[in-house]
């Protein structure tokens, strides 16, 4: 089974005060730390687990800049066989459909039975690249996948629905699955592991080599403006030392009738 996994590097935004950039089209990223998108971490792990059980290859692909190779190296260290990066220059000129078309172009060049994406990327929160790729490639698909069993030429998948319900389906190969968090327990990657994986192939393709026209990649969805969340009344903040806060909390709990 040959599996291609699309991965993206995203900024960590926890405990940082995000700053809007001058054009008001995005956030300032120079001070942020970056990681592999959480969903993609589960996707790459799942691909490697399938490879370990059923043989085949795993290829990680990203569209991005040189810094984004960091997440590809991580995928290689986890057990991917090779990695591909498409150097696309200024990424802000593409929308998700543009990225989709680039990814499809790259994927078509190689043999695959299965393609994985994450359900969502933590930065833009679009959740659309996966299913758009499936449609663009004309292959079968399942979304929000939390379970995969490989059978002869097909898969049994479990998709997560709202309220804790799972939907079991049979999907014929080739197929694209968008992977949801929790499907497995992604393995730990050490610095040493990343260093060792440096020997593995990481191919860089320049967008210009793909022969795609500007028209083809023109965005259809455009960010007009980004801004900080509108002020709301928000929580009443309890302050003081931990003991003083504890006293206040206990008063609240008593008032609400949950302290017997």
């Amino acid at each position, binding site marked *: 089974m040959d599996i291609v996994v699309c991965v993206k590097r995203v*900024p960590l*935004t*926890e405990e940082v005060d*995000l700053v*809007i950039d001058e054009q008001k089209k995005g956030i300032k990223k120079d001070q942020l730390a970056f990681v592999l998108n959480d969903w993609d971490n589960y996707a790459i792990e799942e691909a490697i687990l399938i490879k370990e059980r059923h043989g085949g290859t795993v290829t990680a692909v990203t569209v991005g800049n040189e810094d984004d190779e960091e997440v590809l190296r991580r995928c290689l260290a986890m057990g991917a066989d090779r990695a591909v990066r498409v150097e696309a220059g200024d990424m802000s000129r593409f929308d998700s459909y543009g990225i989709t078309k680039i990814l499809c172009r790259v994927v078509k060049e190689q043999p695959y039975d299965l393609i994985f994406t994450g359900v969502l990327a933590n*930065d*833009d*929160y*679009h*959740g*659309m690249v996966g*299913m*758009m790729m*499936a*449609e*663009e490639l004309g292959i079968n*698909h399942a*979304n*929000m996948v939390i379970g995969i069993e490989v059978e002869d030429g097909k898969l049994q998948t*479990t*998709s*997560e*629905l*709202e309220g*804790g*319900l*799972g*939907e*079991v*389906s*049979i*999907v*014929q190969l080739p197929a694209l699955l968008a992977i949801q*968090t929790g499907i497995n*327990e992604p393995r730990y990657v050490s610095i040493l592991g990343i260093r060792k994986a440096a020997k593995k192939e990481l191919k860089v393709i320049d967008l210009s080599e793909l022969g795609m026209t500007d028209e083809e990649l023109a965005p*259809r*969805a*455009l960010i*007009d*403006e*980004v*801004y900080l*969340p509108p002020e*709301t009344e*928000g*929580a*009443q*903040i*309890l302050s003081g030392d*931990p*003991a003083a*806060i*504890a*006293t206040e*909390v206990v008063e*609240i*709990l008593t008032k*609400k*009738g*949950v302290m017997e």
Partner: protein
Amino acid sequence: MSEIFVIVEHRLNEIRDISFEMLWKACELAQTHSHTVTAILLGHEVNALAEQISDRADTVLLFDDERCKNFNAGTYKEIVAALIQESNPILTLIGNTSWGMELAPCLAVKTGYPLGTDCIDISFQDGKLIAQRQMYDGKIFSNISFADSPGYLLTVRSGVFAKDPLGQRKAEIVKKDFPLAEVPLKKEFVEYVETAAGDVDISQAELLISVGRGIGEEENITLVREFAEALGGIVSCSRPIVDKNWLPKYLQVGTSGKSVSPKVYIAIGISGAFQHMAGVTGAGTIIAINKDHKAPIFRTADYGIVDDLFKIVPALKDKVQELKKG
């Protein structure tokens, strides 16, 4: 004047709330901009469902076919794309649900219409469609617009619009024939499976002590458990804790877990993603402990403690134990 399509989502013979919410928003937009509302209902033996929404649309297009009994994006996308091409609705609303998130991107490729996902508001400003959404875990909002197109597709976040009918509409229910002779079912439905029930039912709890990724390590959950025990509350959690297998799924609060309605909900190291908060709309009082003062949870909590949970939770536990000893 044009049409607004709403793709009605239903499961196990029940219309899902998101469908009512989209119909509400569609009616509001239709009122202000003189559009009409067309509800698209695909299913098998769903006449009763069509009746349930007939006061919320001008037309209900009803497809009754065995193959639409369960949602199947492969079948749905063929039918909906054909309908869109037939009437060119200015706007098509789809739920930003597990199913909608599979259907909408496929439709965008099929129809060539621009797509915006997970929208929390929608408006036409000077004739231009603007959608409001969130990025970066809800820490940033954005307004998006689209390249010129005969129509647009938007998916709508659950729980942001009202569920009630809006205005006076009486839909004509129009039965449509299946426009396609044969739709290959490349994904076959097998069954629904429920999350295994556990020894506690958090949806019935009066006091929940809920732990999130901020707890850092599995061992640290003990701290939360001891606090909950001292207080006589029940431990629940956010999704990453379940994803890591630190606690069972039946303790998860949120859209893909359980909805809870305790008198008091104490959120410890939880950022307040909307998928989590959607599960606590029924909570009486929410107290949040988080060291990031910009964490979205402080926007909806009643009380906030901006500090390290490893300082606050032990102090809380001590205080409660001291009081209970009396």
